[in-house]
């Protein structure tokens, strides 16, 4: 139970939409410095877990803890204050902002984001430092050459990478990544792997990854839970779970196992 004081801990969560039960009594631990992947078929409730943690919906029952502190009063706009940040399945970048502005806007506690900040030299000094850090983050996913281009003009794959970098730029201790590889061309997947390895694991963040790309999960995840029909059918070590016969039968199928 020591993990509950370290990273994200979802405790006996139940959720239903009207009469439809999404999941019942599920618990997941996503400790710091580790990537916890959640896999399962469409409609299993993976994104709903992220939505509940971020305060989009209240759960029917259950609690969520960050570093041992129970979350209450979380709303989508104050998640970062609680140490959480999410990415979306669709990219939701700011199309008229440049790529670097997309990253900059995500950075917390910017003095220059108030009217008084316009007249204080500290705000502009901080802006220069933030810009440097944003360039460093863009370099990590080979987007430095697109830094000054409008994000809306970038190809989908680059927008997706940008949305991941943006989530990391918030400085959140817990990242909830919703299908970061969905729609990405295969040559961009290594960037996602590198990003998660270098910027997430190395900086001690707890990462809860919802993903269908099993190869990506195999490369970055430390542990997996498999959600199927409202319950967790397997969890734990990556290889052991992927080799589990119930998981193969109910989700992965024999093709993957070959």
């Amino acid at each position, binding site marked *: 139970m020591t993990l509950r004081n370290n990273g994200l801990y979802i405790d006996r969560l139940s959720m239903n939409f009207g009469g439809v039960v999404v999941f019942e009594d599920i618990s997941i631990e996503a400790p710091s410095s580790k990537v916890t992947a959640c896999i399962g078929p469409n409609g299993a409730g993976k994104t709903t877990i992220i939505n509940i943690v971020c305060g989009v919906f209240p759960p029917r029952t259950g609690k969520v803890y960050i570093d041992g502190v129970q979350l209450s009063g979380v709303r989508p706009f104050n998640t970062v204050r609680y140490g959480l940040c999410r990415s979306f399945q669709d990219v939701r970048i*700011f199309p008229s902002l440049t790529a670097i*502005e997309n990253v900059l806007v995500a950075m917390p506690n910017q003095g220059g984001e108030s*009217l008084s900040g316009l007249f204080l030299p500290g705000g502009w000094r901080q802006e220069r430092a933030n810009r440097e850090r944003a360039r460093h983050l863009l370099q990590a996913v080979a987007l430095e050459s697109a830094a000054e281009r409008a994000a809306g003009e970038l190809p989908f794959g680059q927008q997706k990478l940008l949305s991941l970098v943006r989530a990391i730029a918030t400085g959140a201790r817990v990242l909830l990544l919703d299908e970061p590889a969905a729609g990405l061309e295969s040559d961009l997947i290594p960037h996602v792997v590198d990003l998660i390895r270098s910027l997430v694991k190395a900086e001690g963040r707890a990462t809860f990854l919802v993903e269908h790309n099993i190869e990506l999960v195999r490369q970055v995840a430390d542990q997996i839970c498999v959600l199927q029909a409202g319950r967790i059918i397997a969890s734990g070590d990556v290889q052991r779970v992927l080799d589990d016969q119930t998981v193969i039968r109910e989700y992965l199928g024999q093709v993957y196992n070959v």
Partner: protein
Amino acid sequence: MEHLLYIGTLIAVWTIVALAANLVIGYTGMMSMGQAAYLGVGAYVTATLNILLGVNFYLALLIGSIIAAVVGAITLLPLLRIGGFYFALATLGINFVFFDIFHNLAPRVEGSEGLYGLQLPDLLASSAPRFATTVAVAIACAMLCQAVVTSPLGRALRATRDRPDALAALGKDPRRYQVLIWTFAAGLTGLAGGLYAATLFYIDPTLFTLDASILVLVYIGVGGLASTTGSVLGVILLIAFNESLRFLGLPSQFVGPFQQAIYGLLLILLMIFRRRGLVGKYDFTE
């Protein structure tokens, strides 16, 4: 010459209004159709304090813009629950409500008959210094607005306009930026209202009807959304165009309707062919 100075002063006043409207509409994506309400609040508070209570004009102007800003914040808060088309419709309601308030203030501030007799300081008392002072204030406002939009705050405003849900997911409440810029813009518009009163020497409720709010939309629509230059350009071109009608020799009863028809046509052509206006950086289809 006297008339040219008067026109120049009007251009400066409307430039301030257009700059403020562009902050909320062009940069933050909040479709305001009620900016004339805040123009009226600024004008009425400034004129009332100055004429009826004998308050120094500059102090009255300052109080007028502060009260316009406060009124802006108060009127916006309930509107934050709604979005898009309904938000625009509600701002229209603000304009109607404040027109009625101005109209029914009688007899204390002479209501629908308007207010006369401002006690103006030297810098605003005659045409040339009034023109210079108002232009100086408009330039200062343009520089301030440009500083806002090029700062991290301006970036957050554009992010609020593009994807408020995504901004919220990054831990920043878009409503904070909406309230901040709406309040600031209402304050600037209130300041313009006080200067408008000083320019005309006289105010009455008909100056602050929906026509005035639409006029502001046309100015920034023609000049360009999300552009400080666009705000200035739109006002200069349209007021200059308006004045040029004088030289067509039209009977005076046709000038008003002709002008409105041209403005309407301009809006239609803009929507079809150039939604960003002349130098704009944003349009609502994005």
